[in-house]
């Protein structure tokens, strides 16, 4: 049983790592901006398309194939630079402090816009580009073959968790972000440029989502409809961990990844249901998620 479960677990954790990038971006944006961005998944699919396009271009131009690795990160950075400041300044900032209904609707409008933009720019066909995965090859341990690329994804996710924590606690900008999260008005009154913090945090969130998409292309490619699918999964992971909790999102991604593995092993038809069932159970018991804290009720 373990012989089958361990490779499945690596597979599950690798896909959980991809979802984690999106979920942690969502959670970061939520804690700083206090807006649940329903369009967040679209940045994942746009990131995937940009990465696949650049990857195909590199292959077509006959450049060094190892360039496809920095290209993945570069794609995410391009998407973040393109959409982060623009969307935050033109749209998100008008929703701060508004009711959840309005925030969800405005970002749903953004979701519709981004879905169409993606379709207009990249078309409706799916793109596949797996050079990075081929280059890394595979490792054989105990008769089981693992894709090195998948192991890299899991390692990257761990690096992102630690990196974000260090960024938030050890650097100046991270502490500014923490201050804004703790008390927006107070932060503003002691002279923190909250607008800059909003732009930076939102762009970082977009970057993380696009990075998830870009890193997914070598194994899964880019396809239409990816944004909507990823959105709910990322949402489930962020909600299970507790909105605004970075380590919570990481733990939730692991739980969801393993739940899927168990579902595939014991009841294959239920594998797509597993993440949502976990979400439902967790939220019914702890509506604020595993790591979240219950908000005190205000009169």
């Amino acid at each position, binding site marked *: 049983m373990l012989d089958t479960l361990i490779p499945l677990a690596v597979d599950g954790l690798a896909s959980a790592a991809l979802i984690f990038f999106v979920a942690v971006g969502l959670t970061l944006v939520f804690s700083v901006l206090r807006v649940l961005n329903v369009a967040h998944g679209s940045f994942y699919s746009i990131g995937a398309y940009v990465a696949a396009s650049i990857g195909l271009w590199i292959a077509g131009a006959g450049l060094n194939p190892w360039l496809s690795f920095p290209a993945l990160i570069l794609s995410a950075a391009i998407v973040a630079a393109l959409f982060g400041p623009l969307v935050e300044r033109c749209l998100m900032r008008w929703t701060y402090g508004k009711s959840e209904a309005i925030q969800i*609707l405005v970002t749903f409008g953004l979701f519709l816009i981004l879905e169409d933009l993606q379709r207009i720019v990249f078309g409706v066909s799916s793109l596949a580009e797996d050079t990075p995965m081929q280059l890394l090859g595979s490792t054989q341990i105990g008769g089981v073959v693992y894709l090195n690329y998948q192991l890299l994804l899991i390692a990257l996710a761990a690096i992102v968790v630690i990196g974000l924590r260090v960024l938030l606690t050890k650097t100046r900008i991270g502490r500014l972000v923490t201050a804004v999260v703790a008390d927006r008005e107070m932060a503003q009154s002691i002279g923190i440029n909250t607008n800059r913090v909003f732009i930076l945090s939102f762009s970082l969130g977009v970057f993380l989502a696009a990075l998830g998409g870009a890193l997914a292309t070598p194994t899964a490619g880019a396809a239409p409809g990816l944004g909507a699918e990823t959105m709910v999964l990322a949402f489930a992971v962020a909600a299970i961990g507790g909105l605004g909790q970075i380590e919570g999102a990481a733990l939730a991604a692991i739980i969801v990844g393993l739940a899927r593995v168990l579902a595939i092993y014991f009841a294959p038809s239920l594998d797509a249901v597993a993440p949502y069932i976990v979400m439902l159970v967790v939220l019914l018991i702890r509506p604020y998620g595993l790591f979240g804290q219950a908000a005190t009720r205000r009169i």
Partner: protein
Amino acid sequence: MRAALFLIALAALALAPVAAPWLQFVLTLAIAKGFAALGVAVLLRGGLISIGHAMFYAVSAYAIAFLARAGVNEFVLLLLLGTLASAVAGLLVGTFLVRYRAIFFAMLNLAMSMVLYALISKLYGITGGTDGMRVAVPSFFGITLDKPRFDTALYYAGIVLMVGVGYGVQRYLASPLGHALSAVHTNELRLEYLGVPVRVVLLIAYTVSAALAGIGGAIAAMAIGHILPEFAFWTASGHLVLVAVLGGIGGVAGPFIGSLFLEVLHTVAVGVTDAWNLIIGVALIGVIFFLPSGLYGLLRRRSGEPA
């Protein structure tokens, strides 16, 4: 003035398929979605946003498909049982969900609907998976009709239902129970101090809204004759909220106006542009920021009454 406008609108709706037969199917679907959007609007009045309401639309549609497969072949019976299935589902789900507010309420609705979506699309043996299920043409009040005639009958039944059920919902919203619902949004704590059982108020509203979505799902299932898991996907739920807000949640007519307007515009627009979602996304954002009471509010303001 309003009564005259209302009658003109109804007459136009009733005569539209005579003038342009292709409109009939579009308008039937618009009415179906209008019902579901009205359900969303009822909850929005209580300050609760559901991004999973398409699940009740799907519950009713699938209930009808199962019943039709089991041999139930009467429009009235199917409509009633489909709606009942959604109402019961709403009562069960609502019992858990009325404890939650704001973002948690929205997320739990989403989770519920995605569980349903994933189950429907994966349980191939029972639900036909992503292939969906066929719904045979039922008889209409005992009369066996061919598909085109049944579609016409369904369309006019839909209009009658819209007026009848719409009136019922209006009465409900104007009743103390309906006012209590709006008060949950304004100040829930004060309502509790007054001794009003908030959760009961919300549970009733949730069940009503699920039943409304069920009527919509029933009409859609019988109009299309084929149902798919996508009925329950979260983007479908998002569209329902969009329709409700675009039309305006101030009155019962709002969601129907929004739905009719959108569906007709969509049908016309797909021939001209393929960036429909982009346009509708921009329109939605525009309405939220500049026209908070929706199209219905605009109509009321134009006719000189307070929105």
